[in-house]
């Protein structure tokens, strides 16, 4: 199999695509936002329950999307559940910088952990938006925005 392909479609991504975690509607949420990627026709709804100490107590999402965007959404929810807003924002920044090529994770320290698996999209400009849609939607939700559109 092509090495570029192996690099992008790793086991973990494929697993999260097939069995996305936190993939459900949330009835009682404190924040909600809709993310659109019209180029792909992708759409997700992200729900957050944030408590008074600014901790993300619960997070979930629903929607349609490619493997990259679904796996990215799923892994994002597992990564930030239980984190503070500040920590979530810091992760967003690292993730964004990694996928747009601004942060070289081999060279610089980062908090991404397993999320580093998405580094491969850096070389696929048309797919960066797939990996970052969930994160942009999170950012919008935290800012209180109802809907965002990326292209």
């Amino acid at each position, binding site marked *: 199999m092509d090495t570029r392909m192996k690099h992008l*479609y790793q086991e973990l991504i494929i697993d999260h695509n097939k069995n996305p975690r936190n993939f459900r509607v949330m009835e009682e949420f404190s924040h909600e936002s809709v993310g659109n990627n019209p180029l792909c026709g992708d759409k997700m709804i992200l729900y957050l329950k944030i408590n008074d100490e600014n901790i993300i107590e619960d997070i979930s999402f629903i929607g349609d999307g490619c493997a990259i965007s679904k796996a990215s959404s799923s892994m994002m929810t597992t990564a930030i559940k239980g984190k503070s807003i500040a920590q979530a924002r810091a992760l967003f920044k690292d993730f964004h910088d990694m996928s747009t090529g601004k942060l070289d994770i081999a060279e610089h320290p980062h908090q991404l952990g397993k999320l580093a698996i998405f580094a491969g999209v850096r070389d696929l400009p048309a797919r960066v938006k797939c990996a970052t849609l969930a994160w942009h939607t999170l950012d919008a939700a935290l800012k209180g925005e109802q809907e965002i559109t990326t292209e």
Partner: protein
Amino acid sequence: MFATQQDHHFDVASIRKDFPILARQIGDKPLVYLDNAASSQMPVQVMDAFAQYHSGYHSNVHRGVHTLSQEATDAFEKVRFKVQRFIGARSEREIVYTSGATDSINLIAQAYGRTFLEKGDEILISNMEHHANIVPWHMLAKEKNLVIRVIPITDEGTLDMDAFDRMLSKNTKVVAVNHVSNALGTINPIAEISRKAHAVGAITVIDGAQAVPHMNVNVSEADCDFYVFSAHKMMGPTGTGVLYGKIEHLEAMPPYRGGGDMILSVSFDTGITYNEVPQKFEAGTPGIAQVIMMGKAIDYMLDIGRDKIQLYENELLEYATNRMRQIDGIRIIGTAPQKASVLSFVLDGIHPHDIGTILDFHGVAVRSGHHCAQPVMERYGIPATTRASFAFYNTRDEVDALVKAIHEVKEVLG
């Protein structure tokens, strides 16, 4: 590797040699270019025309008495005659150079539509239009309070002609449909559409962007009022295209863009006089080299023979369709009996963008997305499709490479 069987003396191997890009590698795989509906590749004959022009006789057209200017003007104007014959127009004055199909449709919407349509008038478009044949009408309709009505399509992807019949009325002023759908491949019956539109006093605007590269077109026989296309989908350069319009329409329309070449005289005292058709619509310095290359692209296709191209492509499409149908979980979107060049599909549970990316890893260039035809996607209730689209330089081996790569996609993500 790229030989074909059954080719009716269609020597695709030697044709492929004219297209240097086809020898390219993507990673360690040979390029399999199946994105021709987005833009076709260019043969060296057309490329050479560019270098010849700029090394030999480049100059601005129309305005000069010197030799280069005359040579450039000559070459530029001769293409008008070529285009006329290529699409069966009655006069070369009916051929307006534009910067592409999109520009052509905007010209019609603005110069014809804004002038002749009135509040409440209806524009019929179809549910399978490219955004280029939707948005200009939408913008016009908003400005002038016009009504846009959408001709539905059947599950196969053909125009629902019964519905069309019912929608036509004395309020119908424009019927704007494509000749071939870029998302579905459907060939629409433009002669019948024009006949019916004319019967209620409407004009037709035919988007031929996907037709001209693949089949014989005769705008006079089909009796369309306007017909548009782009050079870059027919072996020519980007940023150049054609607006065909019946001479009586072109003459009745005001100009679209203002500038040099489209006027006869400008005076602050006595006013402005516009030039004749078609120059009236060609303000500013045109894409001179591009028009000359478009002429070469026409020559190139005529040298091969349009009938031969059509026959070869039809067989290739049939071969591809049959092979694809055998893939488990595939659904072909667009199964009209009359089709050209395009094979759109979805795979159960696998998103088109993943397909596109994985095919690319195998050297296979297809398009994944809505193909600038979102209403088609809405119609079929899908976010996007993957589209393989063929040109006469494609081969059965390339179809096989596509099919093989799709199997790999299923292995990874299925």
